[in-house]
């Protein structure tokens, strides 16, 4: 990955924001605003299409008017309002937020471990959340929605904390120790989860499978609010730490030489990444692929500098999940594919195309 980033930075041209007041500077590739705008437009179009499509079709124009509540004199307004504001808009908004969250979390994780295989779940977030969720669904057999997100959230944070703690020795947790201990602890947790899935009631197990795949089915504004609040705290933090990630990408020694307090920054970034992933997992289950792939694709689009990479991969991840959700609802209608299945189904071919196009890099 390191060699790749050098190749980019030579060619890139930059926009730098450095106001006279304060010690603040923010530098990003000049492709960033354009790409971001493109993704936003794409997302908005997909959002409208997605809301208009369903068992109860709504014309796209009416969708827009219903969102802004300007068609109250329309004959079907009551229905429109119910379908748009209560059913479809919240789940689609949630899909977007979850995609954002996972993408940023993955980009940070790849940055701090300098490992292209890293994803938001590297530190045991998915393992811990899965174990907690499967315990709730299969073992405790509690089906009311209230407990599940909190259990998953707690499971994710506890596991990540345990991995970080176990990797901690003499004032540091090196990436390699984190990775090895992560592998080990995840295996144990995975093993316990497997046992529950093996011996549980098959109906519960199937329900657990849907959760494990990740889904935004039936989510409401409450989920959006909770994750939204979470994002407002951690997303700006992540973006502002982009330059620290750039420095860290040079390697621990170089980063220290440049005056970075590597250990502290890495710990902080890890907290941000894990917190983001845990939030996403709590509301939507362990959706795979987005957090791994969105940063890679975005790096191709806007280069490797994290100040641009983090916000753009957030948008890309969100867009991917909105599109995946639409396809999941459409593909085998009236039944529905969980969004976690679709992310890989549509994301993978695109990524393979990218791999092909960049085969000589």
């Amino acid at each position, binding site marked *: 990955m390191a060699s790749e980033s050098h190749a980019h930075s030579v060619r890139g041209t930059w926009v730098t924001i450095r106001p006279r007041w304060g010690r603040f500077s923010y530098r990003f590739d000049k492709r960033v605003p354009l790409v971001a705008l493109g993704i936003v437009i794409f997302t908005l179009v997909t959002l409208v299409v997605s809301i208009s499509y369903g068992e109860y079709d709504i014309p796209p124009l009416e969708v827009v008017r219903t969102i802004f509540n300007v068609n109250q004199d329309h004959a079907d307004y009551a229905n429109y309002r119910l379908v748009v504001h209560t059913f479809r808009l919240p789940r689609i908004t949630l899909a977007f937020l979850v995609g954002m969250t996972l993408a940023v979390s993955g980009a940070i994780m790849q940055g701090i471990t300098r490992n292209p295989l890293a994803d938001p779940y590297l530190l045991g977030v998915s393992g811990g959340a899965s174990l907690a969720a499967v315990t709730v669904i299969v073992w405790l057999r509690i089906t009311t929605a209230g407990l599940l997100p909190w259990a998953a959230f707690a499971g994710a944070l506890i596991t990540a904390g345990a991995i970080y703690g176990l990797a901690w020795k003499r004032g540091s947790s090196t990436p390699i120790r984190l990775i090895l201990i992560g*592998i080990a602890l995840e295996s144990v947790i995975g093993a*316990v989860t*497997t046992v529950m899935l*093996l011996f549980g009631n098959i109906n519960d197990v199937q329900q657990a499978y849907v959760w494990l*795949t990740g889904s935004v089915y039936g989510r409401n504004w409450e989920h959006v609010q909770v994750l939204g609040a979470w994002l407002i705290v951690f997303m700006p933090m992540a973006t502002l730490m982009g330059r620290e990630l750039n420095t860290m990408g040079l390697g621990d020694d170089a980063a220290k030489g440049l005056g970075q307090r590597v250990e502290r920054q890495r710990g902080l970034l890890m907290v941000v990444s894990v917190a983001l992933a845990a939030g996403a997992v709590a509301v939507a289950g362990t959706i795979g692929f987005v957090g791994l792939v969105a940063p890679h694709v975005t790096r191709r689009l806007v280069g490797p500098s994290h100040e641009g990479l983090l916000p753009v991969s957030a948008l890309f991840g969100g867009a991917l999940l909105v599109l995946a959700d639409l396809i999941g609802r459409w593909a085998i209608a009236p039944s529905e594919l969980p969004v*976690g299945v679709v992310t890989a189904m549509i994301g993978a071919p695109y990524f393979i195309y990218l791999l092909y196009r960049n085969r000589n890099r």
Partner: protein
Amino acid sequence: MSVQTKVVSRNTTRILGSRSLLLPGLVVGVVVLVGGVLWSITLGAADITPDTVYAALFNFDSTSFQHLIIQTVRLPRVLTGVIVGASLAVAGAIMQGLTRNPLADSGILGINSGASFAVVMGVFLLGNPPLSLYAILAFIGAGLASGLVYMLGAMGRGGATPLKLTLAGVILSAFISSFTTAILIGDQETLDKIRFWTAGSLAGRDMALLTQTAPYMLAGLAGAFFISRQITTISLGEDVAKGLGQQTGWVKVLAAVVVVMLAGGAVSLAGPIGFVGLVVPHVVRFMVGVDYRWVVPYSAVLGGILVTVADVGARVIIRPQELPVGVVMAIVGAPFFIWLARWKVKR
């Protein structure tokens, strides 16, 4: 990425510090393995004395019930465990060397996802295929998926670079798995039939199944040993290997073929068993360093021991029911591995 495996080698001291300890260490390993195999055969629903085990192996009496159990049930099972463990560990070691990524195992080549998809499709379409058909489907699925991954990863100039290979593998695995998941979520009956297979198990594996698959895996093990020097070189980095005059393209193709034979055979015999392929190579490197001429045989022996012991646990812990061997392996092996990682990784 390459930094990380190097970090392991640079910042750890080998447990078997002196080269003169390597061969005796391996011999000890083999003795432990054989002992473990015999111990495993004595344990089960009916405990059988070591004398009887010895008699059944070398002095087979077809009228003895215990001899029959040993020859038709326990021996095939324990041998399957040994070869599966050895194969997965060696395949994992090669993949970690080839991609220079400590998170890699044979799963990176799409072997598990390909096999799982083929088997799930088989069960979904055919209803109730026999175990031998599971094996064939798994092997075909594993072979096709890994071929595809390799082709994708090897496109373009520079061939199969670690980054391209790793990405191609992860992407394609995720792609294939998404279809598997779609089937399992949609069809409860298939999920119910398949959930034991997907956890990985050695239960009910007979001699016919073993003799059908073992030759490929033994050939794979021999091949792994044969190319171990080249893997050592390539694990230092592609540029280094080329600088030393190695034809890296060929080595990588050969290595991939070996991995498919090993891990494809293993998944067809026992389903997608995790942990051993990922963790054993790390443990071995802590012991013997990064010379693959030693990493390969040590991985084979240690992988065999781990699966054999874990399978005893799998059969005994919740008698008369069974736990999946991968589960026992993780629960027993992980604490040890965590301790090892804390102790050995200095920086």
